[in-house]
């Protein structure tokens, strides 16, 4: 007989709010007049995210548990990751809404359906159109991201993966400038993303065959007992890992990262670089720590090798880049490796260090991309390093903020980047993965080279180019200042957040 699942609506209130906000956004999109859309959508989205954050802190925190027929777990790591995603997406969203003097968000195309260079496009520009669908799309993606680490069921995880990915595929194809590039990025992201999620799904299917359920706790129980289909465990696990590693852009599934990061609208790049990583690592934590913990001897070495490869490849390829977005893309690959280093450490410290690193990384990535969006040459974004030459003199604050973020990327002490690296390396060393930490520091040194090369260009390079820095509105300013302050704060007084991460790193099994 069918038994209705009990759902603790308070525990998943943040999720409900975000998805509800997304739906309302969709409806508003249909009924609002064009000129009302931008402001209404912006405020609706921000209000939704803030409300969700408030709900998370006030309500969901007191209602932890496994709910919805065992498919959703609201526990410390979930709440931590969800809170992180919400906070990051607020500033991400603000950066996305940057208007730069116009009446419409500057980063997004006038009309997604119009062919670049066509009459329709010019007409849409004349009418002041903009793709305000990005707001509901972002909200839905955020909802998927929040569901991803909460999923205690591989199927739900797969669905969450798709919920978060599908809007991102679309978002990355909506750049206002260089639209062909953007559409191409979208296509690549989509094809490879769909490909990898198929791998994830097949892995989930094999584990279902192995354990008789996709529930992580059932799988965890099944490991170590004879299920009669034991041959399915390891392939299943590897396929799942493939899907997740793709999402975080770890080597050898990193190829999409630079292209997509470069082609997508810059604020979207920041948003997805930060939030997708947070969500995907959150899901990875749950999968490996809760579901597959008992089989760790099988996956730990694999992930360790992936981590090492990500750090090395990411670092080495960063050096040869000349485009800032690509630099950050390759560095995100290296960062994925760093975070994986924390993840393979296992134990509570692994989880907490991973979460801390995610927080640190998220808060430096979004403002970095927001700043990139401000530097223009002939109307379009100037992302080549040479175009940033001498910016330190023309835009001291921008250069200072960006340099500071680069220092954080490089992991210089007194920035969050250092604290994060220290946390993950300490976790790795404490769990007999000292060699990973060694590779990690070497990779950091290598990436530091390119970051400082960029800084050199800002401050010491010649200024003979036509690059201009547009004055940002309060939205971007807020996003950047928040990011920089958090980066600084996590570098100088990381104790509260570390405490939070440590106390949150208790998985409900």
């Amino acid at each position, binding site marked *: 007989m*069918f038994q209705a699942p009990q759902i603790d609506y308070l525990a998943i209130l943040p999720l409900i709010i975000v998805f509800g906000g997304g739906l309302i956004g969709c409806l508003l999109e249909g009924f609002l007049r064009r000129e009302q859309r931008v402001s209404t959508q912006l405020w609706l989205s921000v209000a939704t995210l803030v409300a969700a954050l408030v709900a998370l802190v006030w309500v969901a925190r007191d209602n932890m548990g496994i709910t919805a027929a065992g498919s959703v777990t609201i526990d410390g790591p979930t709440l931590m990751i969800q809170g992180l995603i919400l906070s990051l997406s607020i500033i991400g969203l603000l950066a996305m809404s940057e208007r730069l003097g116009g009446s419409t968000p500057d980063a997004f195309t006038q009309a997604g359906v119009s062919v670049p260079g066509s009459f329709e496009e010019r007409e849409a520009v004349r009418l002041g159109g903009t793709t305000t669908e990005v707001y509901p799309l972002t909200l839905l993606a955020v909802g998927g991201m929040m569901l991803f680490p909460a999923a205690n069921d591989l199927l739900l995880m797969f669905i969450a993966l798709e919920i978060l990915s599908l809007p991102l595929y679309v978002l990355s194809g909506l750049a206002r400038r260089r639209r062909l590039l953007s559409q191409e990025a979208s296509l690549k992201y989509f094809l490879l993303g769909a490909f990898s999620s198929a791998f994830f799904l097949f892995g989930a299917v094999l584990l279902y065959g192995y354990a008789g359920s996709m529930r992580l706790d059932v799988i965890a129980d099944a490991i170590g007992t004879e299920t009669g289909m034991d041959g399915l465990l390891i392939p299943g696990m590897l396929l799942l890992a493939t899907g997740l590693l793709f999402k975080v852009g770890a080597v050898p599934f990193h190829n999409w990262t630079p292209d997509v990061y470069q082609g997508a609208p810059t604020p979207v790049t920041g948003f997805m670089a930060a939030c997708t990583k947070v969500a995907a690592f959150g899901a990875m934590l749950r999968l490996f720590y809760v579901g597959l913990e008992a089989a760790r001897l099988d996956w730990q070495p694999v992930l360790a090798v992936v981590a090492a490869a990500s750090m090395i490849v990411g670092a080495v390829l960063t050096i040869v880049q000349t485009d800032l977005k690509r630099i950050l893309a390759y560095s995100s690959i290296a960062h994925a490796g760093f975070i994986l280093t924390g993840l393979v450490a296992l134990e509570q410290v692994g989880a907490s260090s991973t979460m801390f690193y995610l927080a640190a990384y998220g808060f430096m990535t979004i403002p970095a991309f927001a700043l990139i969006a401000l530097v223009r040459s002939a109307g379009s974004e100037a992302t080549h390093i040479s175009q940033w030459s001498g910016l330190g003199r023309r835009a001291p604050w921008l250069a200072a903020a960006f340099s500071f973020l680069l220092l954080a990327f490089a992991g210089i002490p007194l920035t969050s980047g250092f604290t994060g690296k220290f946390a993950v390396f300490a976790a790795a060393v404490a769990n007999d993965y000292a060699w990973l930490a060694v590779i990690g520091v070497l990779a950091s040194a290598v990436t530091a080279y390119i970051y400082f090369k960029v800084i050199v260009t800002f401050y010491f390079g010649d200024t003979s180019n036509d690059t201009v820095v547009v004055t940002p509105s309060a939205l971007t300013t807020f996003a950047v200042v928040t990011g920089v302050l958090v980066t600084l704060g996590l570098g100088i007084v990381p104790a509260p957040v570390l405490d939070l991460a440590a106390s949150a790193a208790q998985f409900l099994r």
Partner: protein
Amino acid sequence: MDYHPYLPLLFFFALGLLFAGGSMGAGAVIGQKSYNRAKSEAYECGIQPTPQAAEGGRIPIKFYLTAMLFIIFDVEVLFLYPFAVAFDQVGLFSLLAMLLFLFVVSVPFVYEWSRGGLEWD
């Protein structure tokens, strides 16, 4: 021997195939043959066919939109069927869940409608 429900359908399909194939084959064999180049050209109401026909022509975007919308609704129906069949057993919870689901699916429909996605001109 156990009765297999799909076996008769296979018979039926085979008969259909035999009949269709047979009559088409018969048509091909019996029918008269007088070749003529003009006859085998694409039909253009008597005018000279333009060189790019099938792939070169643009398909109106409406068809794609319709296809996409169809997929969404097809999925909706996919969920409605088992729900409808098991309606007596699934309880109030599922009832409300289904209503929520229907609402959620309607939202993009409303969106597309209001933005002119359903207009055929």
